C-alpha cells in the first residue's frame, strides 16, 4: 500500500515495514522510520493544529525541533498521554494514536477561530489595557475566559506508569551534533584514543546530510559517508554514540545535561526500558556542532497549512521520500531554496515558480534551476497567499510594485536564510558576536573549554568545515591530555552545497497585513512594530510584550526576525537592540526525566529503625519526623488515638512503658580534650562530670539562641556519648565539626556519628528496673550503684550495651543502647519482660504528653530559633563560671536581656476539659479590636489522663511574672480563659524519678 505523496525510490527509509497510526481517529499508514509529520504528509495531510491566540489553521513549518505549529497529543493508553508533541519529532510506530489540540469541536471547524475575526482588537499586549472594569470582573469573568481559551494540549489525567533513568557520564570530549562537522570532530578525537561521546537529537546521525542531495565527501554521497563514519565510530571502545539525545543544558565547568528518548519511537509495552534517560555529562572538552536552523519568509498570510521551510521540504523528500505537494511554489531570499526546487523537480514534482526577492540572483545553483526549466521570478515578492485549510495560491508581484499575479500552488517552500544554533554556546556563558556581513550572531568569546565547528560557527564552506572540525577533534583530545599518533588525513569535500545569505525581518511588500513572525503565539511584524512604538526599546521588553519567541519552539525561527524588525523600527543596529540570552532547555524536557527515579520510595529515603518492623506488626501508627518514620502510638483493637494515648500515658506512670528512641542523634566525642571541647560547644560545665554520669546539655548558636539539646554521658575521661534531637543529628555534628576544625583545631578531639550504631530502647516507669534486671549482665542497676543520670557499659541479652539511667517522662527510667542489628531482638526480650509487669509499648505522642506533664521542652516546639535558655527556663544549664562557649556573646545582646521576652509557662484552661489548640494565641484583653496585641502562643497542648485535665505549655511575654494571671485565647467561635501557671503539671517535686 502506498501513500499518495510517497515517491517510490526516494529517501532513506527503503523498504521499511508499514506502521499504521491514527490522527484524530482517522487511520493512516506510514513507514517505520517516518516521523508523524512525514507520514501525515505522505497521506496528503497538512492541517494539524490551531494557533494559540487566533486559532488559525496551521500545518507543518519544519521537519524538526524548531516546529512551532504541528503540536499534537500522543495517546499510548489512558495513562500515557503526552500533550504538545511536535509531530515533526515524534517517530512513527505501529499503533500510534495522535490527536490535534486547541480546537473545538474539530480541527477543520474550530469555534475559537472567531478570535481571528477579532484580531484587530487582540493586538500586542491588549490585555494589559482592558478587563479592568468592573474590578471584580477580572477574577470572575475575564480571567476564567482567557484561561480557558489559552493553553495548548491537555495534561494527562492519570499518574505516569513509565519510569525514567539517569546516568552520570564523564569523557574527554563531548561532541554535540552528529552532522558532518560533529562526525568529523568525533572521528578525529576518537582515533587519537580519547573518550568521546557523540550525541544527536535525531534518530540517526547525519544532520543536514539527511537532505543535502549535492554534497559528496571522500567521493561518497554525503548520507552514505555519514553512515560509514558512524560505522567506524561504533566499532571503537572509547566512543559512546547516542542518538535521539538532546543536549539541552550547558552548565558550569562543562557539565552538559542531555535527554535520551529511549522508547518514544517503539510500540509498547517495554516494562524494563526507561521512557527517557537523563545524561549529565562532565566533559573535559566540548565540541559544539549544532548546525543552523532555516528561517521562514515573513510575508502576509505566511502561516497557511502547506507553507513550510525549504529545508523541511527537502528533508521530507530526500530523507522520507515524501513530496509536500504536487505543485510547489518557492519563495526565497537566498540560494538554499533553489536546491529544494531542483530536488522536487528531479523527483517529478511540479515547481510552480521560484519567487526570489533578489533582483539578480547569480550562482551555479540558480543556473542549475534555470537549466531544469524552473521559472524564476527574480526581484519579485509574495504579497499574500490564498486558501483556507491549505494554501491554494501565492500572490506575487514585482518588488518595486506592479500588478499582482496569482499563482496556484498546493504547497510553498520558503527560506530567508539560516540562523546558526548558538543556544548551547550561549548557555555555556560564551558571548556571541554579531557578524554584520552575514547578519548573524556567531560564537565570540568562549567561557568554557569548548569550541564550535560547522554551521553553528558560521563555517559555510564544506572544505573549511572539514578541516575545522578535524582540528577541533584532535585539539580537544590533546587538551584533554590524550596522546595521539600522527594526524591522519582530513575528510575531503568532493562536492558541496553552499547556502549563505538571505534576509532578516519583514519581506518587502507586506503592507498592513498579517505577516507572522512567531507562528505559535500569533505574533506578527505589526505587533513588534507596535511594541516599539509603545516604548519597548529592549528586545527583552519587545519579546515579553508581544510574546514573540516565547512559545514552545522558543523562537528558533522567530527570534532573529523579531530582533530585526524591532531594530528597524528603532533605527538602531541589531546588536544595540540586544539578543535574548539563551537558557536551558534547548528543547522542552520531560519533568519525569529530570526527576528520574526519585519517585515513590525513591523520592526521599525513608529511614526506619531496627525496631520499626516490630512496631508495624503491633499495629503502630507512624509519623514522619524528617526522613524517619517514628511509631506515633499503638492502638489496640477498637481504640481511637486519644484512647490509645490515654492508656499508654497511664500505663507508663503506673507500671512502665517501652519506647523506641533509636532515631535520636548520637555522637561519640573522643580525645584528651573532649571535655574542653564540650565546654566550648555546650552551655553547661563538663570538666567535673564524673565518668559514668550524665548531664542534660544545651547547645546554642553563636547568636545565643537554643540550637539543640540532649543528654550527654561521660563514658571515660576522654570519651563522651552525646545525644541530639532526631532532626538535629546531622546539623549538630556539622556544627561541632565546624568549630573543631576551624576555630579550635588545636584540641585533640575526634567526633564520630554513632546515631545508627545504636538502637535505643527507653524503658520508663516505676517497674522499669524490674523489667530490665533479668536481662542485664555486669551492671549493678540499683539506685545506689546507678543513680538517676548515670551511664554504664555492660551486656544485655548477651550483647554489648550502653545503659543510661535517665528519664524524659519524670519516671524512673533507662535507655538501653544496643548495636542496631540486635535492636529488635533485645526489644522483644524487654517486651517479654515488660508484659510480665503490665508495661505497654508507647509512641512519640505519649512521649510528648508525658514530658509536657513534667514541663520538659522539645527544641523546635517550645523553641523556634529565637529562644534563649533563660526564655525556656533553662538558665540553670549555663555554666556561670565559664569564660567562653558558643553563644556566650550573643546572649549578651540588648534585646536578649531586655525585659518582656517570651518565657515558658504552663496554662490551665478554666474548663479543665478544654484542650487548647497548639499554635493558638494569647491575649490579655479578648475584646480589643483587630489587630490584637498578642502576648504569646500555645506551644504544646494535650489531654492529660494522668492529671485528669488538659495541660498546655506556652511562650508568653514576661510569662514568669504572669504566673497566676488570667489570659485569653480568642478562637473563631469563642474565647477560652486560661490561668498562667508554672510549666509543670505532675509530680512537681520530682519524687518519681526514684519512685
Amino acid at each position: 500500500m502506498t501513500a499518495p505523496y510517497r515517491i517510490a525510490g526516494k529517501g532513506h527509509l527503503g523498504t521499511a515495514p508499514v506502521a499504521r497510526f491514527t490522527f484524530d481517529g482517522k487511520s493512516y499508514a506510514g513507514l517505520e522510520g517516518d516521523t508523524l509529520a512525514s507520514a501525515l504528509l505522505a497521506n496528503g495531510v497538512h492541517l494539524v493544529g490551531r494557533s494559540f491566540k487566533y486559532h488559525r489553521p496551521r500545518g507543518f513549518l519544519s521537519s524538526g525541533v524548531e516546529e512551532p505549529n504541528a503540536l499534537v497529543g500522543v495517546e499510548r493508553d489512558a495513562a500515557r498521554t503526552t500533550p504538545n508533541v511536535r509531530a515533526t519529532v515524534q517517530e512513527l510506530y505501529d499503533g500510534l494514536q495522535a490527536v490535534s489540540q486547541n480546537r473545538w469541536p474539530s480541527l477543520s471547524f474550530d469555534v475559537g477561530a472567531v478570535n481571528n475575526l477579532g484580531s484587530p482588537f487582540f493586538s500586542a499586549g491588549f490585555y494589559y489595557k482592558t478587563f479592568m472594569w468592573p474590578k471584580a470582573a477580572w477574577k470572575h469573568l475575564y480571567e476564567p475566559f482567557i484561561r480557558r481559551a489559552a493553553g495548548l494540549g491537555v495534561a494527562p489525567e492519570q499518574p505516569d506508569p513509565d519510569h525514567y533513568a539517569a546516568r552520570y557520564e564523564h569523557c574527554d570530549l563531548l561532541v554535540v551534533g552528529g552532522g558532518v562537522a560533529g562526525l568529523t570532530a568525533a572521528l578525529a578525537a576518537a582515533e587519537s584514543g580519547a573518550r568521546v561521546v557523540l550525541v544527536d537529537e535525531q534518530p540517526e546521525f547525519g544532520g543536514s546530510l539527511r537532505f543535502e542531495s549535492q554534497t559528496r565527501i571522500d567521493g561518497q554521497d554525503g548520507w552514505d559517508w555519514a553512515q560509514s563514519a558512524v560505522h567506524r565510530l561504533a566499532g571503537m571502545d572509547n566512543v559512546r554514540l547516542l542518538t535521539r539525545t538532546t543536549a539541552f543544558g550547558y552548565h558550569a565547568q562543562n557539565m552538559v545535561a542531555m535527554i535520551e528518548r529511549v522508547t518514544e519511537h517503539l510500540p509498547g509495552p517495554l516494562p524494563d526500558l526507561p521512557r527517557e534517560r537523563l545524561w549529565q555529562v562532565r566533559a573535559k572538552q566540548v565540541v559544539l556542532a549544532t548546525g543552523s536552523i532555516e528561517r521562514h519568509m515573513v510575508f502576509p498570510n505566511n502561516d497557511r497549512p502547506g507553507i513550510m521551510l525549504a529545508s523541511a521540504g527537502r528533508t521530507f523528500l530526500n530523507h522520507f521520500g515524501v513530496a509536500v505537494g504536487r505543485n510547489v511554489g518557492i519563495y526565497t531570499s537566498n540560494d538554499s531554496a533553489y536546491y529544494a526546487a531542483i530536488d522536487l523537480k528531479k523527483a517529478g514534482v511540479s515547481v510552480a515558480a521560484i519567487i526570489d526577492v533578489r533582483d539578480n540572483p547569480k550562482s551555479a545553483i540558480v543556473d542549475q534551476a534555470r537549466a531544469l526549466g524552473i521559472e524564476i521570478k527574480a526581484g519579485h515578492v509574495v504579497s499574500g497567499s490564498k486558501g483556507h485549510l491549505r494554501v491554494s495560491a501565492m500572490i506575487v508581484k514585482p518588488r518595486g510594485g506592479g500588478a499582482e499575479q496569482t499563482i496556484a500552488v498546493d504547497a510553498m517552500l520558503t527560506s530567508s536564510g539560516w540562523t546558526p544554533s548558538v543556544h548551547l554556546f550561549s548557555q555555556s556563558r560564551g558571548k556571541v558576536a554579531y557578524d554584520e556581513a552575514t547578519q548573524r550572531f556567531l560564537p565570540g568569546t568562549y567561557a568554557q573549554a569548548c569550541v564550535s565547528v560547522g554551521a553553528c560557527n558560521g563555517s559555510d564552506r564544506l572544505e573549511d568545515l572539514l578541516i575545522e572540525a578535524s582540528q577541533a577533534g584532535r585539539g580537544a583530545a590533546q587538551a584533554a591530555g590524550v596522546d595521539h599518533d600522527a594526524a591522519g588525513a582530513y575528510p575531503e569535500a568532493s562536492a558541496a552545497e553552499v547556502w549563505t545569505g538571505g534576509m532578516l525581518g519583514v519581506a518587502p511588500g507586506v503592507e498592513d497585513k498579517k505577516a507572522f513572525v512567531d507562528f505559535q503565539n500569533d505574533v506578527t511584524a505589526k505587533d513588534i512594530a507596535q511594541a516599539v512604538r509603545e516604548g519597548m526599546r529592549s528586545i527583552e521588553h519587545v519579546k515579553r510584550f508581544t510574546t514573540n519567541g516565547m512559545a514552545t519552539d522558543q523562537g528558533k525561527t522567530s527570534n532573529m526576525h523579531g530582533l530585526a524588525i524591532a531594530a528597524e523600527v528603532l533605527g538602531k543596529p541589531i546588536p544595540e537592540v540586544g539578543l535574548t540570552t539563551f537558557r536551558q532547555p534547548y528543547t522542552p524536557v520531560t519533568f519525569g526525566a529530570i526527576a528520574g527515579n526519585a519517585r515513590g520510595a525513591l523520592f526521599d529515603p525513608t529511614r526506619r529503625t531496627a525496631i520499626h518492623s516490630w512496631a508495624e506488626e503491633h499495629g503502630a501508627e507512624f509519623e514522619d519526623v524528617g526522613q524517619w518514620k517514628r511509631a506515633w502510638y499503638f492502638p489496640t483493637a477498637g481504640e481511637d488515638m486519644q484512647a490509645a494515648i490515654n492508656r499508654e500515658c497511664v500505663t507508663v506512670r503506673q507500671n512502665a512503658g517501652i519506647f523506641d528512641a533509636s532515631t535520636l542523634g548520637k555522637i561519640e566525642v573522643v580525645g584528651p580534650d573532649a571535655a574542653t571541647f564540650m565546654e566550648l560547644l555546650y552551655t553547661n560545665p563538663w570538666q567535673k562530670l564524673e565518668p559514668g554520669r550524665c548531664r542534660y546539655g544545651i547547645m546554642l548558636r553563636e547568636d545565643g539562641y537554643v540550637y539543640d539539646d540532649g543528654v550527654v554521658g561521660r563514658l571515660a575521661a576522654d570519651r563522651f556519648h552525646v545525644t541530639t534531637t532526631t532532626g538535629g543529628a546531622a546539623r549538630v555534628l556539622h556544627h561541632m565539626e565546624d568549630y573543631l576544625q576551624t576555630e579550635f583545631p588545636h584540641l585533640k578531639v575526634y567526633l564520630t556519628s554513632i546515631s545508627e550504631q545504636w538502637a535505643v530502647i527507653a524503658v520508663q516507669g516505676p517497674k522499669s528496673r524490674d523489667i530490665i534486671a533479668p536481662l542485664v549482665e555486669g551492671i549493678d542497676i540499683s539506685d545506689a550503684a546507678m543513680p538517676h543520670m548515670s551511664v554504664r557499659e555492660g551486656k544485655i541479652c548477651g550483647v554489648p550495651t550502653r545503659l543510661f539511667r535517665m528519664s524524659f517522662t519524670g519516671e524512673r527510667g533507662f535507655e538501653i543502647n544496643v548495636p542496631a542489628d540486635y535492636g529488635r531482638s533485645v526489644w522483644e526480650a524487654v517486651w517479654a519482660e515488660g508484659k510480665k509487669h503490665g508495661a505497654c509499648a508507647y509512641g512519640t505522642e505519649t512521649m510528648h504528653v508525658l514530658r509536657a506533664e513534667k514541663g520538659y521542652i522539645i527544641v523546635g516546639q517550645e523553641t523556634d530559633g529565637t529562644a534563649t535558655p533563660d526564655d525556656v527556663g533553662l538558665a540553670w544549664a549555663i555554666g556561670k563560671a565559664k569564660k567562653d562557649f558558643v553563644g556566650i556573646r550573643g546572649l549578651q545582646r540588648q534585646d536578649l536581656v531586655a525585659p518582656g521576652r517570651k518565657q515558658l509557662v504552663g496554662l490551665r484552661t478554666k474548663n479543665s476539659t478544654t484542650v487548647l489548640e497548639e499554635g493558638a494565641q494569647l491575649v490579655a484583653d479578648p475584646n480589643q479590636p483587630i489587630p490584637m496585641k498578642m502576648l504569646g502562643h500555645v506551644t504544646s497542648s494535650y489531654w492529660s489522663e494522668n492529671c485528669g485535665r488538659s495541660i498546655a505549655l506556652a511562650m508568653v511575654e514576661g510569662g514568669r511574672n504572669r504566673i497566676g494571671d488570667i489570659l485569653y485565647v480568642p478562637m473563631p467561635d469563642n474565647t477560652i480563659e486560661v490561668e498562667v501557671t508554672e510549666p509543670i503539671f505532675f509530680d512537681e517535686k520530682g519524687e518519681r524519678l526514684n519512685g
Partner: protein
Amino acid sequence: MLLIRCPYCEKDLPEVEFRHAGEAHLVRPSNITEMSDAEFEGYFFIRQNPKGIVFERWRHVHGCGRFFNAARDSVSDKFLTTYKAGEPKPVLGDRE
C-alpha cells in the same frame, strides 16, 4: 553542578558532595565576650557579599569531611583556587 577541587582529596569532585559554609577568614575572637554589639554584628551578621572574587568556606561533607577555603568569581562561578583551612588568603595576582 559545580566541580570543586578538594585540597585534601586533591581531586575535582561534584558539588553535591560539598556544603557551602559561608564567608571565609572570619575568625572567632578569643575574647568574644569583650566585643561591642557593633563588633559582634560585624562578626556574625555583616557579610562582604562581593560581586567578583569571594573567599568562602566549603566542607567536603559527603567526602573527606574537611572544611576548606575557596576563592571563586561570584559572577562566573569559576573557582580560582581552593586551599586548606587555616592557610592564609592566597594572593591571586593576575588570576583575577
